[in-house]
Structures are given as structure tokens and as C-alpha cells.
């Protein structure tokens, strides 16, 4: 078995594979999400009870649209990593694990793509869907 040289930081062994990067990425996403979550709660409070017009007005502000897109994408990144750790812990058969991780990844990608698509349309003030899609 080929192994890289073991590395230690302050007497703690560093992962020989990719565990350290995954650990750091999860913490980085948490750190970014702390202020974004507080903003998201405030945004949710503002939007509550505002109805359709209130929500469309809210999206007219580019700051709101951009912050929402960033919050959504970082949340999905964080969610994908968090769910992966749970699956790694409890699903032990390699085949099942890969399948479940694939489905989780797909779900996150679909939400990300659809979410950004809708946010962009709302921010640009586009006509309600399915306008322009020939339906």
C-alpha cells in the first residue's frame, strides 16, 4: 500500500486522504452561513404576509436577489456535505452508499439550478412562467 507521509499538526494526525479538506469546507460553509441565515430570517419575516405583490417588489431589489441566490447555493453546498457525513456514518455497503450519495447530490443540483433560474427571472421582473416557453 502506498501511503503518503503522515502529517501531524499540534500532535493531531492529519487525514491521509481528503478528510481534512471536507472538514475545513464544512466549517467554512458554516461560517459563511451564520450571517446569511440571520439575513434570511429577516427576509422571511419581511416577506411574510406580503402576498404576491410584496414578494415581487422584494425581488426588484438586486441586493435581495443576489443575497438569496448566494444563501441558497451555500446552503445546498453545506446540506450536501452534512447529509454525506450522515450517510457515511450509517450506510455501510459501498453500493448503497454511492447510490444514496448520488441521489442527494442530484437533489441538491436540481434545487440549485431551478432555484437560481427562478431567482434570475424574478429579479429581472420577467412575466410569470410559462411565458415564452410556448406552453
Amino acid at each position, binding site marked *: 500500500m502506498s501511503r503518503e507521509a503522515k502529517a501531524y499538526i499540534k500532535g493531531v494526525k492529519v487525514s491521509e486522504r481528503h478528510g481534512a479538506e471536507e472538514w475545513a469546507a464544512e466549517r467554512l460553509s458554516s461560517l459563511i452561513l451564520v450571517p446569511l441565515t440571520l439575513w434570511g430570517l429577516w427576509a422571511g419575516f419581511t416577506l411574510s404576509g406580503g*402576498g*404576491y405583490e410584496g414578494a415581487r417588489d422584494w425581488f426588484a431589489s438586486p441586493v435581495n436577489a443576489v443575497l438569496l441566490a448566494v444563501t441558497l447555493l451555500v446552503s445546498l453546498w453545506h446540506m450536501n456535505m452534512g447529509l454525506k457525513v450522515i450517510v457515511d456514518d450509517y450506510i*455501510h455497503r459501498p453500493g448503497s452508499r454511492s447510490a444514496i450519495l448520488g441521489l442527494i447530490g442530484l437533489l441538491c443540483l436540481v*434545487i440549485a439550478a431551478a432555484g437560481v433560474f427562478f431567482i434570475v427571472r424574478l429579479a429581472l421582473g420577467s412575466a410569470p412562467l410559462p411565458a415564452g416557453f410556448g406552453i
Partner: protein
Amino acid sequence: MSSSPLSGDTSNDPADDQTGRFVRQPNGRPRPLSPHLQIWRWHVTMAASILNRMTGSALSVGAVLIALWLLALAFGPDSYATFTGWMGSPLGLLVWFGLTLALFLHLAGGIRHLIWDAGAGLSLKTADALSWASMILGVVGAVAFWVLLFASGRVLL
């Protein structure tokens, strides 16, 4: 728990393990996993850590609902009215309250974990106090959020 399988006991055979009691190490050898949840005596740091996982999983549902909210809004006033009709029903509000609670708990718990990951607050006493603080803060935050929502008339039952 035996660390080596008894012969003839297939449920204890690490080569075909479906119980999750064994894990295949990178060197290819099956090794027993550390004891599962029911073995441990409950303590507050453990409860808070498990709660952080559970609330995180619950928030995945929240991500799907946020995507549905965006979809309903992008499809115009009629679909948005349908969406708010469902979400503004007592059951819908209960779901959103649950998600708010999960979000506040996960936020407070996440900050607690960031403090620990920075190497601070790891003495038994401080770790216990931080666990209690994050759980209490999470519940108080969520309840306060909804009291404000109702008090300001934004949400009506």
C-alpha cells in the same frame, strides 16, 4: 460485543455485514465500529450534537420548500395564491414553525460547534454550558420569531 465473529453466526460475519457493526478499513480489513447510540449514557453534549444533526436533516426539507416557494412565485399570482393557501393553513404554519425551530437550533448549534472547532470551550463544564445555551437560545429564538410574526399581524391563524 465480540470483536471477532463466531463461526456459523452469519449476522456477526464482518465479510457480509449488514448490521453496521463493522466497518471496512482502508486497508481492506473489517473492524468493529464503536458502540452505537443505545450503549451510551445520555449527556447534554451528546444530545446537543445529535440535535444538530437532526435539525440539519430537517432543514433539507426546508430547502425543498424554499425551492417550491420560488417556483410558485415565478409561475404567477394564481400559483402563488395556491402556495400561500397551503402554507398559511394551520398545518402549513406548523411545518414552518418546525422549520424555524430547526433553523434557530441548527444556527445556535453550528456556532457552538465552530467555537469547539476553534479549540475553545472544551472543558466539561463549559462544553455542557454551551450545549444548554445553544438549545435554549434555539427554542427562545424560534418562539420569539413567531410571536413577532403574529404580533405584527403578518401571520394570521
